[in-house]
């Protein structure tokens, strides 16, 4: 459009005598131009007229304009040579079909960053669930035609159709089933939206996350990183590490101070002093009384367990040496061993009850 206007301006501005003289269509070039008609591109390998382009001024402008005009003339000539047809009948515009572009243009925008997989995607990958392509049209039995799966006039989605809803067997007869259905739909939509936003937040958090030191063992971890890994491993139990036994030199983790822990509640400063004293005395009594009692039983049980373990280990070794026969032969003599004798000491009451009342049927 701009070219047409300019031509007319030029013609109007030019002297009436010169209006009749047409410009030459032929262009002389040393080297042929390279054309990429798919991108409407013409590449001119000819060296530019060096003398004409030096220095600013109207002469330079005129030289540049002449160069551009010549190249544009050649490009347009190429375009006219393309196969064209009239679109929309005989009176329609002439449309040329451009070939495939040969130059690959670079990306305009940066490529999309890979986002972390959503919880469903992780699960699907784990289970090996693949997306099954669904048909876009579904046969609607009542309307006897193919309807789309979702959207405007979908199969089975006609609101007028669900004028009747059955009350299920165990439900309250006064309950409004329609309201219930609407409520459920609202809940589903809300949950879907919530999950979508949560996935978005997770992706955003992952993209802006500080690279954390790896917890699995690499060969190049510092002492601090290993300490962090050990601490994380300790806390990663169902009880959050409260009942984890400590390694010999593992330091005690101090309880979280500051704002991290929940608000702790303490006794009042000037509370019931008598009650406080009572509690402390009870605590003292408990502390003093507990000291000897547990030790003995604990020590004895520990000893018994160790003996059991040793016996089991010895049995296992013998079995391996002798094979299947060993198991059958070993069972009888092993029963009347130290184990039962030692146990009788610890549980005299239990032993007597069964031992005293046993009768031969």
């Amino acid at each position, binding site marked *: 459009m701009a070219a047409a206007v300019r031509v007319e301006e030029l013609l109007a501005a030019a002297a009436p005598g010169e209006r009749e003289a047409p410009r030459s269509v032929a262009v002389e070039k040393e080297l042929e131009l390279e054309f990429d008609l798919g991108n409407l591109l013409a590449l001119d390998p000819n060296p530019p007229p060096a003398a004409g382009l030096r220095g600013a001024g109207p002469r330079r402008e005129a030289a540049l304009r002449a160069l551009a005009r010549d190249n544009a003339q050649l490009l347009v000539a190429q375009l006219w040579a393309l196969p064209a047809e009239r679109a929309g009948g005989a009176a329609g515009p002439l449309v040329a079909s451009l070939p495939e572009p040969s130059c690959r243009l670079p990306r305009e925008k940066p490529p999309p960053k890979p986002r972390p997989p959503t919880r469903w995607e992780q699960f699907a990958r784990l289970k090996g669930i693949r997306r099954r392509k669904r048909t876009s049209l579904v046969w609607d039995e009542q309307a006897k035609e193919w309807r789309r799966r979702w959207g405007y006039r979908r199969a089975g989605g006609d609101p007028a159709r669900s004028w009747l809803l059955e009350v299920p067997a165990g439900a309250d007869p006064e309950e409004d089933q329609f309201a219930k259905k609407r409520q459920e739909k609202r809940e589903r939509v809300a949950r879907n939206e919530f999950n979508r936003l949560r996935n978005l937040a997770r992706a955003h958090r992952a993209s802006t996350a500080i690279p954390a030191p790896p917890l699995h063992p690499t060969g190049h971890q510092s002492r601090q990183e290993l300490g962090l890994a050990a601490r994380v491993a300790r806390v990663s139990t169902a009880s959050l590490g409260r009942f984890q036994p400590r390694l010999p030199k593992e*330091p*005690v983790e*101090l*309880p979280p101070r500051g704002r991290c822990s929940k608000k702790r509640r*303490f*006794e*009042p*400063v*000037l*509370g019931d*002093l*008598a009650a*406080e*004293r009572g509690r*402390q*005395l009870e*605590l*003292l009594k408990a*502390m*003093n009384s507990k000291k000897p009692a547990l030790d003995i039983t604990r020590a004895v049980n520990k000893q018994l367990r160790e003996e059991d373990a040793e016996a089991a280990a010895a049995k296992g070794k013998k079995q391996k040496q002798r094979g299947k026969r060993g198991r059958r032969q070993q069972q009888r003599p092993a029963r009347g061993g130290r184990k039962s004798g030692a146990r009788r000491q610890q549980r005299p009451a239990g032993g007597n009850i069964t031992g005293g009342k046993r009768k031969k049927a």
Partner: protein
Amino acid sequence: MRPLTEAETRAVFEKLGRYIGENIQLLVERPDGTYCFRLHRDRVYYVSEKLLKGAASIPRGSLVALGTCFGKFTKTQKFRLNVTALDFLAPYAKGFGVAAKSTQDCRKVDPMAIVVFHQADVGEYVRSEDTLT
């Protein structure tokens, strides 16, 4: 300032018990007044009720100390006994000294071997001036 929690009380009593054995009851329950333990800025104070009532009205930031400081809780929640508790522990003490041999060795050693060094504290020479030769 606040009373000790159960865990803290247990820790304190265990430590005290090592020095005065079962006589902690005499500290907790005294015939001449009600005394109690209070925690202020990780330090454990042994303070009488009268003093406590007075100190309760002082704002937390301004209160420096009250009564007698028995010891403090370290960063890792271990209780360290201070020498300022000496006056209260001395009457019930089971003996003061530094172990010369480790616990294991003490069990195996012959009756005449030296097990405990009695190291004098700063005031001992002055206190026991008459008894020392």
